């Protein structure tokens, strides 16, 4: 039963990712990316990670996608690459060939690996309860957790500074 859910979700995730690549309109790309993020959230549930399921939906599917859509529509960049989207003729097959080499390489490493073969998933549903993640975050990983606060503060300051500079240049022009 779980395998059926996994296969359906995996197909949705891969379809969303490929459709994001292929759609010409950047708004459609963002919406297909949303589909992919939602599918990955379902996979987190299959992996017994309810906390990350919620965080994935709130942060990725909520905040990040909205930010992307907002910027795409603000810039009016939906169709800005219709003509020169395509690379030179020899570049695209080269890129696809390199990507195929990468996935074959990853698969080779994966199936050769002994540690991965030894790993067998156990069905202990409760090892990653939100309480346990919170306990780990606020004891063992307290310093990294504090540092994420500084990272977010730096991001906020950076965005404000960038916005002020772009305002100055546009008023000079």
């Amino acid at each position, binding site marked *: 039963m*779980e*395998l059926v859910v996994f296969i359906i979700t995996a197909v949705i995730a*891969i379809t969303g*990712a490929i459709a*994001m*690549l292929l759609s010409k309109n*950047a708004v459609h*790309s963002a919406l297909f*990316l949303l589909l992919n993020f939602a599918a*990955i959230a379902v*996979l987190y549930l299959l*992996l*017994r*990670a309810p906390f*990350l399921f919620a965080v*994935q939906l709130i*942060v*990725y599917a909520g905040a*990040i996608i909205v930010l*992307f859509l907002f*910027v*795409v529509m*603000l*810039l009016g*960049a939906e169709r*800005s*690459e219709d003509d*020169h*989207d395509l*690379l030179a003729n020899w570049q*695209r097959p080269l*890129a*696809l060939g390199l*990507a195929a080499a*990468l*996935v074959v390489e990853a*698969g080779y490493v*994966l199936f050769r690996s002994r540690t*991965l073969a030894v*790993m067998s*998933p*156990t069905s*202990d549903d409760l*090892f990653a309860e939100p309480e346990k*993640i919170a306990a*780990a*975050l606020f004891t063992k*990983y307290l310093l*990294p957790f504090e540092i*994420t606060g500084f*990272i*977010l503060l*730096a*991001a*906020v300051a*950076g*965005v404000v500074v960038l*916005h002020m*500079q*772009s305002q100055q240049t546009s008023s000079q022009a």
Partner: protein
Amino acid sequence: MIPTTYFVMLSAVLFTIGVVGVLIRRNALVVFMSIELMLNSANLALVAFAQARQDVGGQVLVFFVIVVAAAEVAVGLALLVAIFHTKRTTNIDEISTLRG
């Protein structure tokens, strides 16, 4: 339970799709979305390994990756908007001022 290998394989496929996106698309916004896709596939592998090892540390790491990705998206999109204000384009071939 589903074998960990399946999740890691799916993660590898999604990562490769993200790499292809960075390689063949010229719209900076779509390149950015592909980078997000790669971050997500790495997160999926981390969660799969955390589940296999019954270790909460992997999920805490994913939490940190998500926080950094959110900060990165905010700063990156602000940069894109600033570039668009001066250059009027999101095509990454035309934004090559720093090229030597």
